[in-house]
């Protein structure tokens, strides 16, 4: 091999090496795109729900209440007959079997939706109004195009006759898509069309709030001690080793800790945001202490010395001068720690947050779910409608995380002083 050939070979190797590096970065970036695209394409349809426009006639004979009935009377009244009578008129069905199939196209909450319309206006008896009633999950998925209608009938959840009704609805423009208010307001449900993340949102909010209230002050105080006051001795070293190790302990171990100490020993109520918040706080604490210490360390000694020189005590120099300067870094570290806690699932499963909770929690000691646990729960469900709900929940979760991370970056870039 001549010198030139060898050089060429070496340069080719150089190019190859560079190419590998570029490809790796590209693969990693590609995956981010694929993941986000996949979730968005599956989830964005969940923000709309399919409704069937139906005429509802409030027949006095079928209702035992009068015009102008009070709220309690309406709440107690039975709207079942009214619902059946009106829904079967939506399509000219021939017999009972056909009527049953027709009724299955509406959600299980049709009666409640009709009742709500009457609650809004209690003078409807003898009148006819048009209502947008939520469609059942099968029709919803069919209308959004997530459900293949060319399968043979026995493998479909929708019968041929129901498809005929659906086509009739489409032809007469009786079926449309509205904003899915249930997705944001409702708690969990066995029916995908009625299931919402309202409970999970509130549960996550309480958990993160408790986590913040517990972890932030302790983390700041601990890092101030370690960075500014701690003498260099065995105890301090031991604390530091502990913090570094705790930051790397798998999150599921914190779930076991919570199960044994918080639930079995102290007997706090299971499945509640209170326990979740304490568990997440223990887990987040070391992850906040590390960036807090880094931002305290970044404050130059001249600040401390200046304060001490004009007669401040050690405490005054730290709390009046060092801590305010380190605050942006501290806050952004805390927000990033909280963002991690918001997405944490495994420890919450162990403390029983996988319970099926329909009600929206009204306090941190009510049983509840949380956003990531809701993702886990719904992804285990067989119904097709839960796939889009799960993806939409992930979209909500990811957007919270993005907002939190942007706030953290903004705080750091806007307020952090650079010293050199």
């Amino acid at each position, binding site marked *: 091999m001549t010198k030139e050939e060898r050089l060429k070979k070496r340069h080719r190797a150089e190019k190859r090496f560079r190419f590998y590096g570029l490809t790796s970065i590209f693969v990693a970036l590609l995956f981010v795109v694929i993941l986000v695209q996949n979730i968005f394409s599956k989830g964005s349809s969940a923000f709309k729900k399919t409704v069937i426009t139906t005429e509802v006639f409030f027949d006095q004979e079928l209702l035992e209440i009068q015009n102008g009935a009070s709220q309690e009377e309406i709440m107690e009244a039975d709207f079942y007959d009214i619902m059946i009578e009106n829904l079967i008129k939506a399509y000219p069905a021939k017999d009972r079997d056909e009527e049953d199939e027709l009724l299955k196209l509406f959600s299980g909450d049709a009666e409640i939706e009709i009742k709500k319309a009457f609650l809004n206006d209690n003078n409807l008896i003898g009148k006819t109004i048009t209502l947008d009633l939520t469609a059942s999950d099968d029709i919803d998925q069919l209308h959004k195009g997530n459900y293949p209608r060319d399968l043979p009938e026995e493998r479909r959840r929708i019968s041929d006759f129901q498809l005929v009704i659906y086509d009739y609805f489409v032809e007469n423009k009786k079926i449309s898509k509205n904003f899915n208010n249930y997705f944001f307001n409702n708690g969990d449900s066995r029916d995908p069309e009625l299931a919402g993340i309202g409970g999970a949102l509130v549960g996550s909010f309480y958990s993160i709030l408790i986590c913040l209230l517990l972890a932030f002050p302790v983390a700041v105080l601990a890092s101030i001690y370690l960075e500014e006051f701690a003498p260099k001795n065995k105890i301090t070293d031991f604390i530091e080793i502990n913090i570094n190790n705790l930051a790397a302990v798998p999150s599921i171990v914190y779930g076991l800790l919570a199960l044994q100490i918080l639930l079995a020993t102290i007997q706090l109520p299971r499945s509640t945001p209170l326990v979740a918040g304490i568990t997440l706080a223990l887990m987040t604490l070391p992850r906040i202490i590390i960036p807090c210490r880094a931002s305290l360390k970044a404050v130059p000694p001249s600040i401390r010395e200046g304060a001490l020189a004009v007669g401040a005590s050690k405490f005054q120099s730290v709390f009046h001068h060092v801590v305010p300067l380190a605050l942006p870094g501290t806050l952004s570290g805390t927000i990033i720690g909280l963002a991690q806690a918001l*997405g944490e699932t495994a420890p919450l499963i162990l403390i029983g947050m996988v319970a099926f909770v329909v009600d929206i929690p009204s306090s941190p000691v009510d049983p509840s779910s949380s956003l990531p646990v809701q993702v886990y729960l719904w992804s285990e469900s067989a119904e097709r409608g839960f796939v889009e709900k799960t993806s939409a929940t992930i979209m909500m979760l990811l957007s919270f995380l993005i907002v939190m991370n942007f706030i953290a970056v903004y705080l750091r870039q806007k307020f952090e002083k650079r010293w050199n």
Partner: protein
Amino acid sequence: MNFVLLFLITIFSLSLFFYGRSKTKSISIEKNIRLNALPKFYGYYLVLWCSIPALVFLLVWSLFEPVIIKSIIIETAANQGAIFGDKNEANLIYEKIKAIHLGTYFGDMDSILRESALAYAKFINLFTNSKVVLIFGIIIASVIYSLKKIKNNNKARDDVEVILKGLLFVSSLIAILTTLGIIFSLLFESIKFFSVINIFDYLFGTNWSPQRAFVRDASSITAAEFEELKDAFGFIPLIAGTSFIAFIAMLVAVPIGLFSGIYMAEYASIKVRRISKPIIEILAGIPTVVYGFFAALTVGPFFRQVGENLGLTVSSESALAAGLIMGIMIIPYVSSLSDDVINSVPQSLRDGSYAVGATKSETIKQVVIPAALPGIIGSVLLAVSRAIGETMIVVMAAGLAANLTINPLESTTTITTQIVMILVGDQEFDSPKTQSAFALGLTLFIATLILNYIAQRAVKKYREKYD
């Protein structure tokens, strides 16, 4: 009750602050002496003395009150003739007694329950009253003490700072308390587990089927049941499955992560670096449940489809899908750390290599990487410890049955999956099945601890070399 007490403590503390501040001011004017600190520090001093002892007492009391009352009530119920076979029945009766007290119990009532509920009400009353009395006693004692101090013109600022410094120290101790809590809670149940199952049967058994351990109480095990249990808790399939999935993950993460790290540290312009680094780090910020969902619903079925087309049988919960997605999650851990490590290799080493005519890639391969090797190995070990502790991806995408296999297309299970599967839903405490989850947790904790320790030592040693 606790909220009322907290509110009262706050009110007292606030009023003591203003009292202390004005009192010391007036003392200094009256007696014409110079105070040893600014008046507000006397206020702070009183606040700390009024609130901290009372709050600590309240916290400790609230932690222990339910436990003590429970054991007393179960004792009294037993004395009155209630019979419970095991701890679960005792818990059930205690819950009933509590419900009767709160007026939310609608089941059958017998004399034992009624008597116990009355006793419960009595004890709750007694405990609440003594709590209030003791708290006020503590507050009065500490306030009297501190008032005496400030009347003697103590050095309030120094005293306040000593107390605050103690507070800071206590906050930093919480890390140690957490570690102790983890170790005790894991050890406590694990010891019970290993008193039933021989530790060697656990460590070297090749069969994991905890659902066989349907016996409720470990203390009443018969010889036949024991034989049945003996080989139900074999750890080998779990550690094999865990390492196998982690291995697949590292096959994905190490090359991609390392090459991205090298490219970013050595080749990328500042602009490329500034954009691509945060985007890659997004991968570490995505919650693992999202990866799990993606692996279970998209990647798993996709692999099965591809396998079918190629004539292979691929499980939809294959180790390959879980490992691949886990690997992608770990990429940023490898890339960021190796990027940092490579960046801290001194420029003089590179310059020396260029000076003798090496190309950039030759310099990287033969000078920079060998120099950075301990750090890179450390970062890979940290990534491995992430992989074996990762839970949600494997819970959602890997299998439940413990197969001993090295075929990546079959399903395997992991330590973390089994912990979740055992503990999800209703558990019976004191069953070897539940305890086995804690034994697994202990094993996992020790394994990650060792990995992290070695990794941190490696990175630290490496850093010191070039500092």
